[in-house]
């Protein structure tokens, strides 16, 4: 896949494998969501499948002890890297206590959690962009070294908040990474009806920040580009805009039927570039992913996904009246 080598990027073999394990965990959790949804056990799924490299590679390039995430609803890969556990993710899918994102109040994919330095996200798209800028402004004011990472889809990049956030961050040279996961569709709407210029990274120059369009299936290129952006941000050089080219392998959500707007051939062709397959092959060729390691990894992840699912399925819901709490500070 990549022309890059993980060692040249300063990644040890263990780290290269670690990245793969997060990608695989995200994929396995996501596949389980669909089974649970089809079995009528969870009402809704929104998927990361196909975008794991674009997510895990980016989050892995950040410092989860100092940086902030303001992700969007597909970024399961990002929040796993920042610490969310399979059980917590399943608690969120089942809307049960132990969901660190919203304690069962929001749909799955609406990520957040202070202990994971993840700002809370909502459904109206791209509102997280200005929030990330605000977190970056605070870190600059306090002389901290934290970087704020925020992502959205290419369709969502057409919201006014995208523009207002990017310009504000550029004016004050704030440590922000504006990330766009361009998977070619906004639900059913293709790039031709969504963007006047299909490369959203070309917007960067208008704001006076560097912009990069990268292959979102190449986890090493993603890691490298985001790492460099984070370094620039920490050095006071301001924000960066990055568009990762990727593809959504599933329908938009469990409520969608993508046959209405894209051909099966197109989806099949995309599956040939599935980053999980290509990166696994890279690691095998590099002698990092041995047969034993692969089996061990698959077993561990399957076990974690099973445990998470069982725990969440068995867990009690919050009491109904609990819905009345936390509207305002409770003194």
């Amino acid at each position, binding site marked *: 896949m990549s022309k890059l080598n993980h060692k040249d990027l300063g990644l040890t073999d263990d780290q290269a494998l670690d990245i793969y394990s997060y990608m695989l965990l995200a994929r396995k959790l996501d596949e389980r969501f669909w089974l649970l949804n089809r079995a009528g056990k969870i*009402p*809704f799924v929104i998927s990361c499948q196909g975008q794991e490299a674009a997510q895990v590679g980016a989050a892995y390039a950040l410092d989860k002890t100092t940086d902030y995430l303001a992700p969007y609803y597909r970024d399961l890969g990002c929040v796993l890297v920042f610490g969310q556990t399979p059980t917590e993710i399943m608690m969120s899918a089942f*809307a*049960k206590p132990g969901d660190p994102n*919203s304690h*069962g*109040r*929001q*749909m799955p994919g*609406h990520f957040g959690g202070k202990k994971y330095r993840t700002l809370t996200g*909502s*459904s*109206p*798209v791209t509102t997280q962009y200005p929030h990330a800028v605000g977190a970056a402004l605070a870190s600059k004011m306090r002389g901290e070294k934290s970087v704020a990472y925020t992502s959205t*889809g290419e*369709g*969502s990049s*057409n*919201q*006014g*908040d995208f523009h207002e956030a990017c310009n504000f961050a550029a004016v004050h040279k704030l440590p922000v990474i504006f990330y766009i996961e361009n998977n070619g569709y*906004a*639900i*059913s*709407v293709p790039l031709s*009806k*969504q*963007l006047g210029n299909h490369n959203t990274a070309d917007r960067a120059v208008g704001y006076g920040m560097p912009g990069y369009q990268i292959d979102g299936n190449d986890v090493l290129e993603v890691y490298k580009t985001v790492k460099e952006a984070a370094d620039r941000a920490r050095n006071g050089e301001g924000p960066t805009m990055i568009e990762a080219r990727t593809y959504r392998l599933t329908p938009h959500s469990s*409520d*969608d039927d993508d046959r*209405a*707007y894209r051909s099966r051939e197109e989806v099949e062709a995309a599956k040939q570039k599935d980053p999980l397959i290509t990166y696994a092959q890279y690691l095998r060729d590099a002698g990092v992913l041995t047969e034993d390691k692969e089996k061990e990894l698959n077993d561990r992840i399957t076990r974690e996904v099973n445990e998470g699912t069982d725990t969440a399925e068995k867990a009690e*819901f*919050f*009491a*109904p*009246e*609990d*819905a*009345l709490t936390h*509207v305002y500070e409770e003194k």
Partner: protein
Amino acid sequence: MAIKSYIEAVTDALREEMERDESIFILGEDVGVRGGVFRATAGLIEQFGEDRVMDSPLSESAIVGVSIGAAMVGMRPVAEIQFADFIFPAYNQIVSEAARIRYRTKSDWTVPMTIRAPYGGGVHGALYHSQSIEALFMNVPGIKIVMPSTPYDVKGLLKASIRDNDPVLFFEHKRCYRLIKGEVPEEDYTIEIGKADIKREGTDVTVITYGLMVHYALEAAESLEKEGISTHILDLRTIKPLDREAILEAAKKTGKVLIVHEHGKFGGVGGEVSAIISEEALFDLDAPVRRLAGPDVPAMPYSPPQEKFYMLNPQKIADAIRKLAEF
């Protein structure tokens, strides 16, 4: 007359109006080949082509702002906001622009635009796919707000909205889309905007409501009839302008009024209805005007038991009616 679902009535009204008037076009997210995420525009792009059934970029402010511009120069756009919850990025265009263009030009420029949006809960939509947002537009002169409860009303009121020469917010309860079916005439007809409708005659307690709650109130009335309580049900159908005469008449009829709406009570539509009644029918009242509404929390949670707890239902409405009857 054919039996149609609530959403079929939407599609029929759109199709018939677009056949009638070339200047009507649809603009929204996924309204084209996808036919809308709820399928309200299914089949329309095939019939009218992509110039009249346009997939817009993911930009609500542009959907509304572009529609306003097109409307000013003679088109009749029907904008779709995918979920009512996502109308807020366009709030400035609706409140500062669409609602005021006639006023600030003394009708030199006007905005014959309809904005359709599915609203309401009970669909596992959580905080941002369940809201009723009409209260946030009540205090905005210059717009109209239509919220039908039956397929018949949907078709007649959507046609009237599209033909109206002022901006209309047309809110469709997404839970009603496939749940509610009813008789809809094949032929062309419109229902006047601003007219409420008595959905059930009664003598003991008056329920004033709209949308999905009309159906829950009707169920409640059924069960209460067995207990000997007779419920009068007024369906507002239009929230702005409100049908003052119909409200006062319905209030005076029983002297006991229960206002029901799905969204939170504080600052909700019920406040205005209640104030109208106590301003003009105070001495016809035999009991305080009651409001039964959603809890005052941001919106209904995803957690199923909590969503159920948030939503009103026939049982809760029946209990409130009974209390008033016994007052």
